[in-house]
């Protein structure tokens, strides 16, 4: 099905209705495999012991936090350039999910940092830039919540999302540009990954599971947002009929 067909909200609702059960099943299946791999199959690190398992939650949440902002930027282009009717629904539905993943990334990172680095928080370049992204997510949500008319809020939020996208390469390359505490890129890098296969495979399984979880939550949130807007429209019609 081409993307343009889904521009019609009713058709999107039909698609969501059919896709969601499959997506939920796939997410549960992927988490079953990923968690078993991560918790029982993957070996403990010889230095970090069992705390290395935190990484299986930390790294996918960080990827998803950044992926979600990229998706919102694509949706922002859709709003501003093509006035795609579902683009601002997609952007609005993604913001809280992205904020939640970014929070999970910061939270698990500080849980791991306490035993390993000896502190919950350092003002390292990677940590700081992710914290800035988290604050920008909250700012975007505040913006969405402060304006009543969704399409007006959508266009304003789209501009801010695109400006905020400058932060994404800063997060990605912060570990290379500033050589501070957070370890440099080790999964995707020139010359192959520096992580052993026994850890890398469970990590990818968890990344797939997290991505499926994100897609499921996002489509469900978009469905709710469309329904919410319809309810709002009906309430306004009703108020109009009663008032005049």
């Amino acid at each position: 099905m081409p993307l343009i067909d889904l521009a019609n909200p009713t058709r999107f609702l039909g698609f969501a209705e059919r896709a969601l059960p499959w997506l939920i099943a796939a997410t549960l299946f992927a988490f079953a495999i990923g968690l078993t791999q991560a918790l029982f199959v993957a070996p403990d690190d010889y230095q970090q012991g069992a705390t290395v398992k935190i990484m299986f939650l930390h790294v996918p949440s960080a990827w998803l936090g950044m992926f979600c902002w990229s998706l919102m930027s694509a949706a922002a282009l859709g709003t501003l350039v093509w006035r795609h009717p579902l683009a601002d629904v997609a952007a609005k539905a993604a913001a809280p999910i992205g904020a939640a993943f970014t929070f999970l990334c910061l939270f698990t990172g500080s849980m791991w940092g306490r035993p390993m680095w000896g502190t919950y928080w350092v003002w390292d370049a990677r940590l700081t830039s992710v914290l800035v992204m988290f604050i920008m997510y909250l700012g975007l949500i505040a913006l969405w919540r402060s304006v009543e008319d969704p399409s007006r809020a959508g266009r304003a939020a789209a501009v801010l999302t695109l400006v905020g996208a400058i932060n994404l390469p800063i997060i990605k390359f912060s570990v290379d540009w500033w050589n501070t505490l957070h370890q440099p890129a080790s999964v995707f890098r020139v010359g192959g990954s520096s992580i052993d296969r026994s850890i890398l495979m469970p990590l990818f399984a968890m990344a797939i599971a997290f991505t499926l979880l994100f897609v499921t939550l996002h489509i469900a949130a978009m469905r709710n947002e469309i329904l919410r807007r319809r309810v709002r429209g009906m309430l306004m019609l009703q108020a109009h009929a009663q008032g005049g």
Partner: protein
Amino acid sequence: MQALRALLVRDMRIALRIGGGALMGVLFFLAVVTLTPFAVGPDPALLRRIGPAILWLGALLASLLALDRLFAADHEDGSLDLILMGSAPLELTVAVKALAHWLTTGLPLVVAVPVLGLLLDLDPLAIGAVALTLLAGTPALTFIGVIGAALAVALRRGGLLLPVLVLPLTVPVLIFGVSAADAAIVGPVPFGAPFTILCALTLMSLVIGPFAAAATLRHGLD
């Protein structure tokens, strides 16, 4: 060109008149710098060490102060609609309004640094370094802030939302501004590296700010 020059003169004249609030930023800057010794204690050695950071933070907050009036005042009396309908490209118009705003609120902050630096017991070299980095950095703060000002008027909600949206975007400017000032005062990093990045950030915001703000105004005010 003539229209843009007229707009620049008009905006500066309004800002300097009664109710314009051009010097409110400097007063706020003075208040922040005066409050700091009460919070951290009047130890001169400590104040000398964190002085550049205090001056940068004060200037950052002060430059946010008058931002929400940048378009809102013109929107209220209807002149914003006239400005938007003018023949000059909207991006240039926004850039000129931001320039006028910087000349009346950002530049006075730089001028105030020598006096406020004395309050924090900074030596002449440190005062010079902070003034120079602020001169290079405050345009970035204004031109990033202009995006927030456009959002505030398009959404008709300025107030608290604007600082929440703008402050995260100013983090790189603050980092490189303070590290350039510190590099000049105590080293060991050479002054050039962070200072050129600060200048690059300013040049980038000179481009991105007007375009994003113009897009917001175009989409928000129809």
